[in-house]
C-alpha cells in the first residue's frame, strides 16, 4: 500500500541473508547513518497492515509508523471482525513489542530444572543444534515420544500439520482447557466442530449460558464480533436471558439474570427439556426427519438396525415405525415415521428414542431442578415457555430468495462447557434447541460457520475401548473412549504411568505458545510432571513460567513482527482471510515461528526430501501439483511461502495483503449458513438425540474393568448426578469459578502494564452479604482453601476480596490471567486460581477435559481457621 520508509528498507535489505549478528551489526551502522541525516529529513510516516498478535480472532490492524517505528495500532477498516476498531488488548500490545524484558536471544539453561531459571545467551545456531540433537536422539527411538505441545497456533498448516508430520512427533493442544468438552458434545450430537452460538443477527430470544459477553469470546471468537452482532439484534428486540452465577458477564445487557449454582447446567437443561415437552413446544417434522428420535430402541438399549447392501458398501440402517404402513421400516425408506410410542417388530417390543427421552426427562421437573440449581421453579417454566413461544415453531422466512425455517431462539455457550458433567450438559442444552427445531434455522442454533461434518461424528458411532498398554494420552483407553487429549491427564499419567497402564512416556517436549504451569488447572500436577521430560524447548517471546522452571532451551519468537497465517477473517456472514504481516523487523534477535521451524527442520535434517518439511508445507497449504509448490531446495524465505500460497488462491501474491490488508471473498450464502438448506441438509448428519454408542462404550468399559467414576456418565441420554465436588465437607461451602477479563488474554498479557493498569490486580469476587457474614470487607486479604473430594487433598491461596452484589452468595469467582512471576510488570499481581483447582478423577469431564469448578472455604487472612 504505502511506500516503505527508506530506513526500514535499508534495514530490510541488511537483514536478508546475513546471520543475525552480522545483520544487526549492519543495520545498526546503517541506522547511525540514517540517524545522522534524520535531522535533515522530516520524519517519514506511513501505515502498514498487520493483525492483532494477542487475540484469538486476529483482528486486522493498521500500524502507524514514524521512520519505521510503530507508534500506534488501529483497527483495519472493512475487516469483517473488527472493522476499524480494536479492543483494549489490541490497543495495548504496542508497548509489549518494545518490551526489553522480552527474551532477546536464544537462551540455554545453566541451572537445575524445577527452580527459577538461570541462563546463558547463545547464538541461534548453537541453540538450534542443541534442540535438534535432543529431538533426533529420541526420534531414533520413537518419534512419537517427541511431544509438540501448543496453546494457540496461528499457522496451523505450517506448525501443527507440516512440522509435526515432518518430525513425526505427537501433538497436544490446550483445547481440553478451552472448550473441547463442548466440541466433543456437538461433534457427537450434530456432527459440528464448535460449541453453541445462535445465528445472532436474527436471534430474538437468547439463553446467554455462561457467556462472558462483555469480556470474552463466546463460541469461537475473541471478542468484538459477538458484541456487535448482539447490539444489532438487540436494537431489533433481542431478549437476553443470562444464565450465569455472575451478573458481570452480560452486565447491563442481561434482560433477565438466572444466577444458577455452578455445574448444575445439566439439571437446568434437562428440566427445560421436560418443560418444552410438557408445554408441547415440539418441532415434530424436524425431530422425525433429521434426528434419531424416531429410531426404534430395544429393551437392551440398542437401536434396531438392518444390514443393507453387500460387501464393502454394506451398512447398518436403523428401523423406525412407519405410520403409513403400520410396520417397522428402514429409516431411509419410511414415509411417516412415528416419533412416539411403543411398537412390536418381529415379536420384540421397541420404543422410539423420543418415547424413551420423554420418560427420561419426566422426573426432571422445574421443582426438581429448582433445588439443584438454586433458582425459582417458576423461572424455569417461564423461560421454557418464552423459549418455546419465541421459537415460532413452523414459521419460515425468506433469505436471499430461499425459504428457510425461522426459529429465532438459541443458546450461546462456550468455556462453561468445562465442568465435570460438561459433555452431557452441552448435549442436553443442544437438545433444548433441537426440541423446538432451532438447529440450523434462521436466528436459531448454530455451532460452527459451516455444516461440514467433522470426522469425529462418524468416529463416535463406534467407540473403541482397547486393553492396556495405552499411549500417554490414553487414546482409545478404557478410561476415555472419547478422548480430547488432555494435558492434565497426561500430567497425571507422567506422575504414575503404571496406574494407567502406560509404558512409554514422552521424553522431549517442544512448547509452542503455551504456558501450562500458569494457564492450566491444577498447577501442582504440572510442576511435578514437567520434571519428567528429558528435554524441554520453549518457543516464546517472553520467559513463560513453564519456561522459567522447565525449559532447557528458550527460542525467542517475535510477537507481531512476523509472517503468519493464513487466518480466517470471517464474521459468519462475510468470508475473508488475512495474513499477519510484520509491521517492522523482528526486535532484538527474535524470529517468527515459521523461520524457527524452518531452522529447526534444517538442523534436525528433515527440511528436504519426500515428507520433509518443505514437502509437508506444500501439502498443508495445498500447493502440491500447483505451479506455486515450494521447490525441494534450500530453505525458503517465509515471505515467499505465503506469496506462493496467495498466488495459489488466485491472488496477485502476498502484495495483495500488503496493499489491501485483507482478502474479502464475499458474502456467505444462506445455503451454507442454515443447516436446513445445505446440501444435503445439516451436512447429511442425523442428529443424535439418543447416544447409543455411549451406552455401548459403557458396557465395553465395564468389560475391560474400568472403575465407575470413568464409565458412569457414558449414557445414551444426559443424566443428572451431583458433581463429585459436592461431596467435599460442608465447611467448603463455596463454589470457586473463574473467568476472563476484557483487559487480559489468558496468562500472556499481565506482563503488559497498560492492561493491568486498566484491569487492576487479582481479586476474588464475593457476594456482599456473604462477606458481611464472614467479617470480610472490600480490599481485605482472604485465604481460599480448596478441597479434593476424591483424594482429600487441600490447596490454598491468598488474594484480595472484591465485594459485589452481582454474584451468588454461595459462589466466589476469580479472574484467570494472573499469577505470573517471570516478568517485572506481572510479578506481585496476585495468584492464579489454577493453584487451587484440581484435575484428574472427579475434576475432569468424561471426554478427558478440565473442569474449572471446586469447593472452597474462605476466611479473612490472619484470622483463625
Amino acid at each position, binding site marked *: 500500500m504505502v511506500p516503505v520508509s527508506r530506513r526500514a528498507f535499508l534495514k530490510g535489505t541488511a537483514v536478508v541473508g546475513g546471520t543475525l549478528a552480522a545483520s544487526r551489526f549492519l543495520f545498526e551502522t546503517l541506522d547511525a547513518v540514517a540517524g545522522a541525516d534524520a535531522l535533515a529529513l522530516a520524519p517519514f510516516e506511513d501505515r502498514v497492515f498487520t493483525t492483532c498478535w494477542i487475540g484469538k480472532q486476529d483482528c486486522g490492524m493498521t500500524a502507524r509508523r514514524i521512520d519505521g517505528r510503530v507508534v500506534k495500532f488501529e483497527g483495519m477498516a472493512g475487516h469483517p471482525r473488527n472493522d476499524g*476498531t480494536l479492543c*483494549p488488548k489490541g490497543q495495548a500490545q504496542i508497548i509489549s513489542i518494545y518490551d526489553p524484558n522480552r527474551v532477546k536471544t536464544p537462551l540455554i539453561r545453566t541451572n537445575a530444572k524445577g527452580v527459577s531459571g538461570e541462563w546463558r545467551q547463545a547464538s541461534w545456531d548453537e541453540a538450534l543444534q542443541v534442540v535438534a540433537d535432543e529431538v533426533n536422539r529420541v526420534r531414533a527411538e520413537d518419534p512419537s515420544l517427541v511431544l509438540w505441545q501448543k496453546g494457540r497456533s496461528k499457522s496451523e498448516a505450517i506448525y501443527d500439520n507440516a512440522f509435526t508430520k515432518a518430525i513425526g512427533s505427537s501433538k497436544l493442544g490446550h483445547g481440553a482447557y478451552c472448550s473441547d468438552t463442548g466440541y466433543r458434545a456437538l461433534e457427537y450430537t450434530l456432527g459440528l466442530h464448535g460449541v453453541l452460538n445462535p445465528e445472532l443477527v436474527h436471534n430474538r430470544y437468547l439463553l446467554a449460558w455462561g457467556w462472558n459477553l462483555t469480556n470474552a469470546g463466546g463460541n469461537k471468537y475473541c471478542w468484538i464480533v459477538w458484541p456487535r452482532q448482539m447490539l444489532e439484534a438487540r436494537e431489533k428486540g433481542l431478549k437476553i436471558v443470562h444464565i450465569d452465577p455472575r451478573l458481570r458477564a452480560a452486565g447491563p445487557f442481561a434482560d433477565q439474570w438466572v444466577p444458577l449454582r455452578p455445574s448444575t447446567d445439566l439439571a437446568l437443561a434437562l428440566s427445560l427439556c421436560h418443560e418444552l415437552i410438557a408445554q408441547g413446544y415440539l418441532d415434530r417434522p424436524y425431530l422425525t426427519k433429521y434426528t434419531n428420535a424416531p429410531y426404534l430402541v430395544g429393551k437392551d438399549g440398542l437401536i434396531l438396525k438392518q444390514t443393507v447392501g453387500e460387501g464393502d458398501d454394506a451398512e447398518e440402517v436403523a428401523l423406525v415405525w412407519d405410520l403409513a404402513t403400520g410396520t417397522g421400516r428402514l429409516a431411509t425408506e419410511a414415509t411417516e415415521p412415528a416419533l412416539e410410542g411403543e411398537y412390536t417388530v418381529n415379536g420384540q417390543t421397541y420404543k422410539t428414542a423420543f418415547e424413551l427421552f420423554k420418560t427420561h426427562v419426566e422426573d426432571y421437573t422445574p421443582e426438581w431442578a429448582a433445588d439443584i440449581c438454586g433458582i425459582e421453579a417458576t423461572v424455569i417454566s417461564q423461560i421454557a415457555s418464552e423459549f418455546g413461544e419465541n421459537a415460532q415453531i413452523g414459521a419460515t422466512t425468506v433469505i436471499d430468495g430461499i425459504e428457510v425455517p425461522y426459529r429465532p431462539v438459541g443458546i450461546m455457550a462456550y468455556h462453561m462447557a468445562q465442568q465435570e458433567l460438561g459433555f452431557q450438559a452441552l448435549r442436553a442444552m443442544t437438545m433444548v434447541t433441537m426440541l423446538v427445531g432451532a438447529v440450523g434455522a434462521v436466528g436459531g442454533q448454530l455451532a460452527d460457520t459451516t455444516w461440514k461434518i467433522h470426522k469425529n461424528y462418524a468416529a463416535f458411532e463406534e467407540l473403541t475401548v482397547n486393553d492396556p498398554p495405552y499411549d500417554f494420552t490414553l487414546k482409545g483407553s478404557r478410561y476415555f473412549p472419547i478422548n480430547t487429549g488432555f494435558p492434565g491427564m497426561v500430567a497425571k499419567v507422567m506422575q504414575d504411568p503404571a496406574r494407567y497402564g502406560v509404558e512409554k512416556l514422552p521424553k522431549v517436549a517442544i512448547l509452542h505458545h503455551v504456558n501450562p504451569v500458569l494457564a492450566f488447572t491444577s498447577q501442582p500436577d504440572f510442576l511435578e510432571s514437567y520434571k519428567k521430560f528429558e528435554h524441554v524447548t520453549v518457543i516464546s517471546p517472553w520467559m513463560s513460567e513453564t519456561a522459567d522452571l522447565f525449559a532447557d532451551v528458550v527460542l525467542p519468537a517475535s510477537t507481531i513482527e512476523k509472517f503468519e497465517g493464513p487466518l480466517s477473517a470471517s464474521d459468519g456472514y462475510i468470508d475473508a482471510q488475512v495474513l499477519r504481516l510484520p509491521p517492522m523487523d523482528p526486535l532484538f534477535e527474535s524470529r517468527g515461528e515459521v523461520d524457527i521451524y524452518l531452522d529447526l527442520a534444517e538442523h534436525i535434517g528433515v527440511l528436504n526430501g519426500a515428507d520433509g518439511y518443505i514437502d509437508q508445507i506444500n501439502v498443508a497449504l495445498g500447493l502440491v501439483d500447483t505451479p506455486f509448490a515450494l521447490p525441494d531446495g534450500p530453505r525458503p524465505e517465509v515471505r515467499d511461502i505465503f506469496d506462493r500460497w496467495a498466488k495459489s488462491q488466485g491472488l496477485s501474491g502476498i502484495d495483495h495483503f500488503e496493499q489491501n490488508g485483507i482478502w474479502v471473498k464475499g458474502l456467505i450464502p444462506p445455503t451454507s449458513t442454515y443447516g436446513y438448506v445445505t446440501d444435503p441438509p445439516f451436512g447429511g448428519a442425523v442428529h443424535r438425540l439418543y447416544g447409543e454408542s455411549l451406552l455401548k462404550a459403557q458396557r465395553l468399559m465395564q468389560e475391560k474393568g474400568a472403575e465407575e467414576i470413568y464409565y458412569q456418565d457414558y449414557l445414551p441420554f444426559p443424566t443428572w448426578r451431583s458433581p463429585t465436588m459436592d461431596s467435599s465437607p460442608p465447611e467448603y461451602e463455596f463454589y470457586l469459578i473463574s473467568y476472563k477479563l476484557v483487559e487480559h488474554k489468558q496468562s500472556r498479557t499481565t506482563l503488559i502494564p497498560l492492561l493491568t493498569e486498566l484491569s487492576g490486580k487479582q481479586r476474588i469476587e464475593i457476594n456482599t452479604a456473604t462477606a458481611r457474614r464472614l467479617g470480610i470487607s472490600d480490599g481485605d486479604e482472604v485465604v481460599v482453601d480448596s478441597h479434593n473430594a476424591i483424594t482429600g487433598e487441600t490447596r490454598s491461596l491468598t488474594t484480595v476480596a472484591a465485594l459485589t*452484589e452481582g454474584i451468588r452468595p454461595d459462589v466466589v469467582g476469580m479472574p484467570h490471567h494472573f499469577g505470573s512471576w517471570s516478568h517485572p510488570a506481572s510479578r506481585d499481581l496476585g495468584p492464579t486460581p489454577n493453584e487451587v483447582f484440581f484435575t484428574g478423577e472427579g475434576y475432569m469431564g468424561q471426554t478427558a477435559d478440565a473442569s474449572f469448578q471446586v469447593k472452597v472455604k474462605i476466611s479473612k487472612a490472619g484470622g483463625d481457621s
Partner: protein
Amino acid sequence: MTRYVMAVDLNRCQGCRACVEACKIENNTPSAVFWMHVFRLEEGEYPDTKMSFLPRPCQHCNNAPCVKVCPVGARYKREDGLVLTDFDRCIGCRYCEVACPYGVNFFNWRNPDEAWDEYQVPFDDPDLMPVTGGVIPSYKNPDHDRLHGPEQRLTSGSAHFKGVMEKCTFCVHRVEQGLLPACVDTCPVGALKFGDIEDEGSPISTFLRNKESFQLLEELGTDPSVVYVGGTPPTSHAREIERPLTGV
C-alpha cells in the same frame, strides 16, 4: 462555524475501556493518568442487581468553570468548542482542577520521564536504540510536538512538563487532521460518536436528532459538549467496581 460534540451511546457501551487505552497510547499519557475513564457501576442488592458503564472524557463544557478560574488564561475555550490547556503558559496552580466538577484534570506531579517508571518497561534500553532512538515512550507520537489551532499553542499530548496541568483534548491534533478522536475511533461497538453539531448533515447531528439525551451534572449549568444517549445519569447509590490502578 464548527462546534464539536461527543455523544456516548450507553445502550451500546460494553465498558471495555478500549477508549481509555486508545487515549493513553495516542496521547502518550503515563501511568495512572486517565483522560478517559470508564466507570463500571453496580446498584441494588442481589439478586436485583443492576450494572451500568459510563465513559467519562473531559466534558468540554461550554460554560466551563475551569476556564473561568484559570488565573493566566492557560485553560481556554476555543470557538470550535474544545477546552484546551496551554502547556507553555500553565503555572500549575491546579485551580482548574478544583473547579472542575467532573474530576477529569490530571496534573504532572512527576518529572515526565519518571512518570513512566511504574510500567517497568525501560524504553531507554540500548537494544531499542536502533529502532526507537531512545524516545520515551517507544511509541511516542510526534504530533504532540506541534502547536495547534489558529492560536498556535502547545495543547496536545501528555507529560510535556513537570508541574503543568493536562486533560482530554478531544484529540485536537487528530481533529485538525480530519481524524476522529482516538477513543471514538477505536470503540469496538460504536458507542462513541464525534463531530460538528452545527453541521446538519454530520453523523453526530443525525445520530442525536430526536433522541433523548442528558449531560452529566446538567444542574450545574456547565453545559457540557459531551451528551449521553440511553441509560440514565448515575445516581448517588452507584458503587464503582473494577477500578483501574489509579495511584501514583
